[in-house]
């Protein structure tokens, strides 16, 4: 049934204006952790493209490089060809499962400490605090009428933000070309339109997302907060409030007795320091990114009243229940879901490592002609045409000996390389490239025994004797 139970409300209630958040400066363990994470992660991001790695002559010497036009990706000693992109898939699977595991164990540490949105927002807030002052000063500045001083502060802030955003966008492109060369080209105006375009795009997104959108990204745009509820259980470490100890809350004076009332002095500091503006005392909620700055805030207040710390704490639901009853808290790291995530992580990691260690640096691919399927020659022999591609993924010119097996007496000719019928051919393949050869295989029809037969192409690397094989079909009437 479709019966309105009440008169439809005013449409203005269907949209909510964003409430400006003015996070207050805070000191403590988790704040120090966040600074450490920020410095390490930004250092990696800005510094990694400048690491050098010698791969020999003719090869790029950048440790981390995704060469799109050249169709290669480089990661230190590993070079990836396009068909090996499944290693990237493997990395993404590892990242996803790793995220599940860390969330099951320690809550939203990704969101609170390492997510780019969090890191850059933190950086932008730091700049904002430097220029405009802490929470009360910023609130006052927002309310104040426009004045030269206000305009100056605002201009300085946005210029600083744009500078940071530009550095962010400018660093991103360094992963896709030789960083020192690109930097030079960029500033003399000789880089490609794509480079300038992507720099502008990432500058704009950084500026908007970290300067303005901030917690709106976490609450409205990001799918992860909605998914991560499924990763939690009662043993996951999350930011908690001991409401059994804190309530009923109320204002308090120094030295007063807390008999018969809760420990929460309702100073509101936990809300004021929160970068997403939530009140953690209402319990776990989607907008909480788990950065634990409210823990730092509360722990700075509790000792002043002679109260035990960790009224707001990084703890699990199960521990909170235990503490309420007076039982000893216990962290259970080993749980079915954490064991399962770890097992998947290990299996995928091992499979990837095995694949990487065991991968060959040469391959043979054979494409049989679709038309004609076979050709009858004057002397009655049958001939099939193939395109043979030999991939030489090493940084050295190589010679491969190509042979066919599976049909006795079969011979081959390769236009441009082997003019006379032979049983084997020596084919040169340049370093880090694909050699493509037209190969005609000739056989007597009676060797086919009246049907299409399997034929195996083997290319032997003359330098180390390793053979790379690929089966195909020899067709006859």
């Amino acid at each position: 049934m479709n019966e309105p139970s009440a008169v439809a409300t005013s449409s203005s209630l269907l949209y909510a204006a964003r409430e400006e958040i003015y996070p207050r400066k805070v000191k403590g363990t988790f704040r120090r952790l966040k600074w450490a994470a920020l410095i390490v992660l930004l250092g990696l991001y800005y510094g990694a493209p400048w690491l050098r790695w010698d791969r020999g002559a003719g090869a790029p010497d950048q440790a981390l490089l995704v060469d799109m036009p050249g169709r290669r990706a480089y990661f230190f000693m590993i070079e990836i060809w396009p068909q090996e992109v499944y290693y990237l898939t493997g990395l993404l699977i590892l990242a996803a499962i790793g995220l599940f595991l860390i969330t099951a164990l320690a809550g939203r540490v990704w969101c609170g400490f390492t997510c780019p949105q969090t890191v850059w927002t933190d950086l932008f807030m730091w700049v904002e605090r430097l220029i405009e002052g802490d929470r009360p000063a910023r609130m006052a500045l927002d309310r104040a009428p426009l004045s030269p001083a206000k305009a100056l502060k605002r201009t300085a802030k946005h210029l600083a933000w744009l500078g940071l955003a530009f550095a962010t966008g400018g660093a991103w492109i360094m992963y896709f070309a030789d960083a020192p060369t690109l930097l030079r080209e960029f500033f003399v105006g000789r880089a490609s339109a794509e480079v300038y375009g992507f720099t502008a795009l990432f500058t704009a997104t950084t500026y908007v997302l970290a300067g303005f959108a901030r917690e709106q990204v976490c609450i409205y745009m990001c799918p992860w907060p909605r998914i991560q509820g499924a990763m939690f259980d009662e043993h996951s470490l999350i930011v908690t409030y001991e409401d059994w100890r804190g309530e009923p809350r109320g204002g308090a004076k120094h030295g007063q007795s807390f008999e018969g009332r809760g420990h929460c002095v309702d100073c509101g500091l936990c809300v004021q320091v929160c970068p997403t503006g939530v009140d953690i005392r209402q319990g776990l909620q989607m907008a909480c990114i788990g950065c634990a700055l409210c823990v730092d805030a509360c722990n700075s207040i509790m000792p002043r009243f002679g109260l035990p710390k960790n009224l707001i704490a990084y703890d699990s639901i199960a521990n909170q229940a235990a503490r309420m009853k007076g039982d000893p808290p216990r962290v259970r790291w080993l749980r079915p879901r954490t064991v399962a995530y770890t097992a998947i992580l290990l299996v995928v990691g091992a499979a990837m490592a095995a694949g990487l260690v065991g991968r060959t640096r040469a391959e043979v691919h054979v494409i049989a002609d679709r038309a004609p399927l076979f050709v009858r020659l004057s002397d009655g022999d049958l001939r099939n045409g193939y395109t043979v591609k030999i991939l030489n993924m090493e940084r050295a010119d190589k010679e491969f000996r190509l042979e066919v097996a599976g049909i006795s007496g079969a011979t081959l000719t390769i236009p441009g390389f082997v003019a006379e019928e032979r049983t084997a051919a020596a084919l040169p393949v340049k370093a880090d490239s694909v050699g493509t050869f037209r190969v005609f295989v000739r056989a007597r029809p009676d060797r086919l025994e009246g049907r299409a037969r399997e034929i195996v192409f083997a290319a032997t690397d003359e330098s180390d004797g390793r053979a790379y094989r690929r089966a195909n079909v020899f067709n006859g009437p």
Partner: protein
Amino acid sequence: MANVEKDTVTGTDTTGHQWDGIKELNNPLPRWWLYVLYATIVWSVGYWVVYPAWPSLSSYTKGVLGYSSRAEMEKDVAAARKAQESWRAKLAAAPIAEIVKDKDLLVYATAGGKAVFAENCQPCHGAGGAGRPGGYPVLADDDWLWGGAPEEILATVRFGVRSGHKDARASEMPRFGEQLKADEIRVLADHVLSLSGKGAKSDTGVKLFEENCIACHGDDGKGNKDLGTPNLADGIWLLGGTRETIAAQIATPRHGVMPAWEGRLDPVALKMVAAYIHALGGGK
């Protein structure tokens, strides 16, 4: 509104809508989200202004940028043609025999020739020169009526076979049905088959062959590419290799026709397609 109902569990307002007892909670959308929607609408209006958008009865609004995907494509084609120019100049200058020996030129010529072949030759000769039964020769084998050297292939492509062009390849086999008796033709067909080791050899057959055939097909029946006479001593038969089809060809010969491509294709395209055919596997 005064009578907004609150959900008792979450404390959230409801929208007042109820479906089968389930009440819709009012979690308001952020207002900027709505503004993003408006911005996309404004953006789309911008498209109408700068790009072709609205149809009229006989035309459409062109947009201030004057963009057209056809013009874009023509620009790309012109750029591609310009990029081809240096190669085309080299191909125009080099004789076909040199093109097939030069690896770089050959790669370019066969790639271009493949497209020319697909557009012009494939309907009769099949993809990859596979041929078709009933008189469309296989171009990928090593048996050539008019020669399989690069310049011979190029001449056949340019002037055609019995095409009416003054330089066309032309030959005509007489209708032996008017000169020989039916049983003589059968014996002769048997003898022709015996040249490739299949039919019965006979003295009458030898005599008939010497009297009627060797002038064009040669003493050993191996044909003559200058006359376009097929090799009768191999396993390849343009019009069928059974006694009946051979007898029919002796009595009332059929002659295929291939058009001349000179004039229809430019000289470079002719060279490219000849190089491509030469590379199909049977080129001499």
